[in-house]
């Protein structure tokens, strides 16, 4: 996507909308999926959230003003949808978000869509213990390789606060991994 403005016009005009939207999905489906998957853990939830995210993007693309990059805007929607999904699961099972994440992790070793080794599993457990903000920052920075500037735009916070969060998160994870 070389020219975001032009692409946006195609997305917002009824004749070119569907074709442009399909292109948008093809471009971002994998990145958004993996971002969501790291938050909700299970593939089924990630699939639901990804679809909802795209539907939401399709419905509200005409409201997108271009204040931020299209990419950060979609990431923000995906993040919110993923957190909403965890909240929904927690509400349905009448428990807390933390318990939901712990349960999801407990299912990981037998999950057919997880083939991580012992240490990867341990890292996921460690991440789940972090406060939600630190989880998000760590995943986006460490695995998705996003820049602080981009993460700041997605989470609507300052770069300084993010850097601090990230370093605290890394430190905690390192300690957790090396302890027995």
């Amino acid at each position, binding site marked *: 996507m070389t020219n975001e403005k032009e692409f946006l016009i195609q997305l917002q005009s009824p004749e070119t909308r*569907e074709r442009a*939207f*399909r292109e948008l*999905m*093809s471009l971002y*489906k*994998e990145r958004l*999926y*993996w971002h969501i*998957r*790291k938050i909700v853990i299970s*593939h089924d939830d990630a*699939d639901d959230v*990804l*679809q909802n995210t*795209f*539907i939401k993007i*399709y419905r509200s693309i005409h409201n997108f003003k271009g204040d931020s990059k299209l990419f950060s805007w979609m990431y923000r929607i995906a993040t919110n949808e993923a957190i909403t999904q965890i909240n929904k699961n927690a509400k349905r099972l009448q428990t807390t978000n933390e318990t939901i994440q712990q349960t999801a992790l407990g299912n990981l070793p037998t999950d*057919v*869509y*997880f*083939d*991580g*080794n*012992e*240490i*990867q*599993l341990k*890292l*996921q457990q460690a991440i789940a213990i972090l406060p939600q903000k630190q989880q998000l920052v760590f995943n986006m920075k460490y*695995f998705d390789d996003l820049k602080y500037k981009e993460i700041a735009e997605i989470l609507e916070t300052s770069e300084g606060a993010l850097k601090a969060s990230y370093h605290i998160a*890394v430190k905690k*994870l*390192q300690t957790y*991994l*090396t302890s027995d």
Partner: protein
Amino acid sequence: MNKELKNIKTTGFKTPDNYFDTIEDNVMDNIKLNNILNSKSTGQTIPEGYFDTIEDSVYKKITSSKKEIKVVRLFTRKNMFYAASLAAAIVLMLIVVLPSNPSFSNLELETVENYIYQESYSSEDIAALLTEEELKEVLYADSSYSDESLEDYILDNTTIEDFIIE
């Protein structure tokens, strides 16, 4: 096994095979389906200008029937008192007079079966007790339909949208 964080480069999560190939189609299908479901139109219309005249026609009806109508209360305090004491007396009487009368609700199924068996009722006798409506229901429950008639019924009475929504 190296436990350093910097050596872990992936999460270990996987997706089903070819999962990413069908996302665009799935999402577009979902959007189209949602559009159908969300277009809340029932297809019903109203006469032109209906809502413009509704105040007038309602007001006309109000003013033309302005006669005072006296309201007679169905349940006055006195009547209620009589009715309540009568009801209480009947309940009391039933409790005292009929202490252990059997009722249908506490009859054992076996008892009923034995009774019918011993009294040797014929099926005609039992049929005579049933109304025509009840008999019809029994007949319907037993009848079997041919494949053709089922197919005709489905073709005539359902639309493809019904199946999509399902």
